[in-house]
């Protein structure tokens, strides 16, 4: 195409040709071939061409021969002022044959393309002109019919026009809802290809003409050989001089981009789209390859890219702020528990009665290894109870000697202790009613001399090294209990007689409710308190829960919450005289002046079946059976102890029996109908501080005296405890508690530790009621 155009140039008149050098666009070369740039203003007889590059490189014009190597812009603005002058300086610029109709579709795009198109059309015009002339010559030669007009009009100039530029309309939200009418019409038939048939029917009108023409043609063909007019001749054409033209362009920079669209990626994008439609532009761009943007190196997931945009406004990634994030605190919490799990795993597994792999943890002492035998056949009357330890690696399935009976024992698993609690004596323990892994422990002493600030802690099984909640109290804590109706409430009784209720859901140290303002509060230490569900048959309400306390000032009170925590008296424990004084024959001595008419109450226990009755133990050594309905009279008094009764407990299965322990070194089993003791257990020479029945077996109870913890199994022996665990000399056992869901015992001591012991090899639990044989 280029060469042809060059051939046309002589037609235009004499001019000077300059070699313009490499250009950006091939199209530029013929243009430049027409003449120099503006660098040669002197040539008046040459058309002037100026090339202007859009944008930055305005300095580098199309001067003769120089091409600027770096050009990012691919759009060249070529403005052509085409003027042709002949020798005499006359303007012989050919006028364009085509005048675009201004009312017709005007090319709306930018100038450069328009001007190129004009140029195109101008060139086209020349080309067509020449082609037409040549074809005419050929037509004359060959005498073939041609439709000349077609050539001229074949090129529809409107086709050459550029596409009308699309103007972007601003769409608004309302446009989405607007209904748009689309009209579908049929366009005019566009002839793409028209091949007229070369066959005509004999009966048509043209048949005659066609036949004649065919005949003429056949004659010509016949005459062809030997005819002078049909001699083959050869002609030589002039080959134009070949010219090499080089074009240089910028290196085309290739880029690799990879995208991984994972399914969560798509899910996130959809969700973020709903939240923030504006940031969708960033979109799902997870770059596996390199990215041009200066993002941080962590930008490997699109989720972070998308979310980054949404949190840029929030700006909370500062280092110090991380420590205060809620998520961070929660993670710390879990991390601590997981660490504990790693450390305590075998112990916790033993607690849960899971089989533990021995030999895996080299930290286990030899002591633990020696005892475990496979479950063998039982002896005649005893059943071996499997406590969950299998030492498969040491003892295969061989049945060891059947005669060997493993004695029941306590194995210490761990102890709940920390720096805070060291030095405080454990006074009471209570399980949470809904969460069997949550334990509340109260720290304080009953001893008058050693009073210091008390503590109530909630320990969780999952973290034996630090309590979950720490409530500091003004006075020593002497009693506590979890509520059943609202399991987050913990009632704490203190040495000064005040009662406080804490909410374990919060970490605040302050009590939810306190008895400070109550006028009726206790004046002596609260020795025991309990939440009791009682039937409110009279008022028709159903079971309501009340907080009952007994304290050393001799009153049993029931607390309720109206505007504040307040209480009413259930019972005043009057001093009762000892029966021995009323022996016949003796003169009745007048009792001396008493400081108080009331006897200090030390403990109480409500009947498990009928919550109207309860037992109260006093400092005098008497146990009174009372009823909630009468607040003046005792129903019965059980006399047997010679010292203050520290604890009474009904047997949970055989509900006619109850147990009491006292400072006179003895534990007494009573039947509620008999006023004399049924059984007495003397095994130590120290005061028994606490007793508790096992929740699983009717015969088993645990007792804590100062030097030992004892487990008694009345089905085995009534004279001796089955397990006796001796304390180290510094500590005194103060409190015992059975675990409700496993065979473990918790023992609190005066050093502030709560040891968790596992009961092993106890006799099989029995829960039927026990009848006393040979009752007196």
């Amino acid at each position, binding site marked *: 195409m280029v060469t042809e155009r060059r051939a046309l140039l002589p037609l235009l008149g004499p001019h000077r040709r300059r070699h313009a050098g490499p250009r950006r666009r091939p199209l530029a070369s013929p243009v430049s071939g027409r003449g120099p740039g503006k660098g040669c203003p002197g040539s008046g007889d040459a058309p002037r061409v100026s090339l202007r590059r859009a944008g930055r490189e305005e300095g580098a014009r199309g001067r003769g021969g120089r091409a600027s190597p770096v050009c990012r812009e691919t759009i060249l603005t070529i403005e052509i002022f085409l003027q042709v002058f002949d020798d005499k300086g006359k303007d012989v610029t050919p006028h364009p044959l085509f005048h675009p109709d201004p009312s017709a579709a005007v090319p709306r795009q930018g100038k450069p393309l328009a001007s190129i198109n004009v140029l195109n059309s101008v060139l086209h015009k020349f080309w067509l002109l020449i082609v037409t002339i040549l074809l005419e010559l050929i037509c004359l030669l060959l005498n073939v019919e041609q439709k000349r007009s077609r050539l001229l009009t074949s090129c529809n100039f409107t086709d050459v026009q550029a596409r009308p530029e699309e103007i972007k309309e601003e769409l608004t939200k309302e446009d989405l809802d607007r209904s748009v009418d689309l009209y579908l019409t049929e366009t005019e038939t566009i002839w793409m290809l028209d091949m007229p048939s070369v066959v005509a029917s004999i009966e048509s009108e043209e048949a005659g003409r066609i036949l004649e023409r065919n005949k003429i043609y056949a004659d010509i063909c016949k005459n062809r050989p030997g005819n002078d007019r049909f001699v083959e001749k050869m002609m030589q054409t002039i080959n134009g001089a070949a010219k090499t033209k080089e074009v240089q362009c910028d290196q085309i920079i290739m880029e690799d981009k990879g995208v991984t669209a*994972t*399914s*969560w990626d*798509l*899910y*996130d994008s959809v969700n973020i789209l709903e939240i923030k439609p504006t940031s969708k532009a960033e979109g799902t761009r997870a770059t596996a390859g390199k990215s041009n943007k200066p993002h*941080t*190196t*962590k930008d*490997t*997931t699109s989720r*972070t890219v998308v*979310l980054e945009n949404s949190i840029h406004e929030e700006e*909370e*990634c500062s*280092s*110090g702020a*991380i*420590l*205060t*994030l*809620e*998520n*961070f*605190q*929660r*993670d*710390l*919490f*879990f*991390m*601590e528990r*997981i*660490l*504990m799990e*790693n*450390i305590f*795993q075998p112990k916790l597994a033993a607690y849960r009665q899971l089989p533990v792999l021995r030999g895996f*943890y*080299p*930290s286990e002492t030899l002591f633990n290894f020696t005892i475990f035998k496979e479950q063998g056949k039982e002896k005649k009357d005893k059943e071996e109870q499997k406590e969950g330890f299998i030492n498969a690696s040491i003892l295969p399935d061989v049945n060891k000697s059947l005669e060997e009976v493993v004695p029941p024992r306590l194995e210490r698993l761990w102890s709940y202790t920390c720096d805070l609690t060291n030095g405080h004596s454990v006074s009471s323990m209570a399980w949470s009613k809904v969460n069997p892994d*949550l334990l509340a422990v109260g720290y304080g002493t009953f001893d008058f001399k050693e009073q210091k600030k008390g503590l109530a802690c*909630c320990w*969780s099984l999952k973290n034996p*090294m*630090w309590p*979950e*909640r720490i409530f500091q109290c003004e006075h020593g804590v002497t009693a506590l209990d979890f509520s059943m109706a609202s399991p987050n409430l913990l009632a704490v009784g203190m040495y000064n007689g005040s009662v406080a209720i804490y909410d*374990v*859901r*919060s*970490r*605040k140290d302050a009590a939810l409710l306190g008895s400070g303002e109550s006028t009726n509060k206790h004046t002596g230490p609260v020795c025991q308190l309990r939440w009791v569900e009682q039937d409110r048959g009279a008022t028709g309400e159903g079971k309501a829960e009340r907080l009952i306390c007994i304290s050393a000032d001799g009153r049993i009170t029931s607390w309720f919450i109206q505007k504040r925590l307040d209480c009413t008296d259930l019972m005043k424990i009057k001093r009762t005289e000892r029966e021995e004084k009323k022996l016949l024959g003796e003169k009745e001595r007048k009792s001396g002046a008493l400081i108080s008419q009331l006897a200090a109450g030390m403990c109480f226990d409500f009947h498990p079946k009928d919550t109207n009755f309860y037992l109260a133990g006093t400092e005098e050594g008497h146990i009174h059976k009372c009823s909630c309905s009468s607040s003046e009279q005792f129903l019965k008094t059980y006399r047997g102890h010679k010292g203050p009764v520290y604890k009474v407990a009904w047997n949970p299965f055989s509900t006619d029996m109850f147990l009491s322990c006292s400072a006179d070194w003895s534990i007494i089993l009573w039947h509620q109908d008999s006023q004399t003791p049924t059984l007495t257990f003397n095994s130590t020479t120290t005061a028994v501080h606490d007793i508790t029945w096992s929740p699983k077996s009717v015969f088993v109870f645990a007792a804590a005296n100062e030097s030992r913890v004892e487990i008694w199994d009345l089905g085995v022996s009534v004279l001796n405890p089955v397990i006796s665990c001796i304390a180290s000399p510094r500590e005194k056992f103060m409190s015992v508690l059975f675990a409700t869901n496993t065979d473990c015992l918790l023992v609190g001591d005066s050093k502030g530790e709560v040891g968790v012991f596992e009961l092993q090899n106890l006799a099989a639990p029995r829960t039927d009621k026990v009848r006393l044989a040979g009752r007196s």
Partner: protein
Amino acid sequence: MLWCPLSSQAEVEETLKRIQAHKGVIATMVINAEGIPIRTTLDNSTTVHYAGLLHQLTAKARSTVRDIDPQNDLTFLRIRSKKHEIMIAPDKEYLLIVIQNPCE
């Protein structure tokens, strides 16, 4: 649920100290989103080393979990090796890493 937000920065520090003082804990690190350690008990080069590697691993683990079910998300990662156990609590803005030797 026993957890409730700790009320003060001091309690956070205390919990961190307790964790560091536990039996068998070799190292504790808190690393922010850019890989810069905020709190660490190891030297800086080791910390940065761990941070880079564990960050990639966490990202891959999270991608795996979410690929299976996009509504799920990774909450905790534990790597047990012959010598230690590495426990990672990942989050959008930080990484909490504790290395423990459980057999001590």
